[in-house]
């Protein structure tokens, strides 16, 4: 199984964990992060994710390689969806597995921070008022500073 999947279809967290963990007894801590489509005020009709197909996999692979270099990890997995999603739908899944919980927590947090600021995806929100590209958040760029040596 590849560490990275960029796909239209939804994912199954339990199946992904089972695949990564299968036959392994050296894993003591599993962290998952799931990002979902929010609709705070009931105005969102859909969200569309565009991505740069040629570059996305490479960026996500590079982010995972960086995580393996920083923490003792037994497994990492990133699934990111693209296309048209509805409120409540899953967008992204990150899974990290390690012998100990701190490595698994930190690596998942790190993967999300780097994915947010480097993986070439763009979200557009569709409401009754039309479609709008979501602006990048300053806080996502600042989050990277936490990981500087």
């Amino acid at each position, binding site marked *: 199984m590849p560490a990275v999947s960029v796909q239209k279809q939804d994912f199954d967290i339990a199946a992904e964990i089972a695949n990564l963990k299968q036959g392994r007894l050296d894993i003591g801590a599993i962290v998952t992060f799931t*990002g979902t489509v929010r609709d705070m005020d009931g105005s969102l009709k859909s969200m569309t*994710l*565009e*991505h*740069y197909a*040629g*570059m996305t996999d*490479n960026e996500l692979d590079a982010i995972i390689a960086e995580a393996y270099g920083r923490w003792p990890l037994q497994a990492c997995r990133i699934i*990111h969806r693209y296309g048209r999603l509805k409120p409540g739908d899953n*967008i*992204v899944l990150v899974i990290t597995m390690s012998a100990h919980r701190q490595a698994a927590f930190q690596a998942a947090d790190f993967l*999300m921070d780097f*994915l*947010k*600021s*480097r*993986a*070439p*995806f*763009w*979200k*557009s929100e569709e409401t009754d008022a039309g479609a709008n*590209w*979501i*602006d*990048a958040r300053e806080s996502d*760029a600042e989050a990277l500073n936490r990981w500087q040596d």
Partner: protein
Amino acid sequence: MLQLLYFSWVRERTGTSEEQITLPDGIATVSTLVGHLRAKNDRYAAAFEDMKQIRIAVNQRYVDPDAAIKDGDEIAFFPPVTGG
């Protein structure tokens, strides 16, 4: 030839997602290529109006605006990413 790609609102402003152009004479960096594209028409001028809002990848790797380019490169222009 250069392969040019545009994503998100950069794509909407230029009106194209992908195009091939001949490497223009005297163009050796992304910056000078952007100047050349801006001069094409109003749509491109609007797309590249504020380069602080544009991210650049050459051959699928992030680069700065002063990065060198050469014949055969794939050059992508897009806004700051918003996935995850």
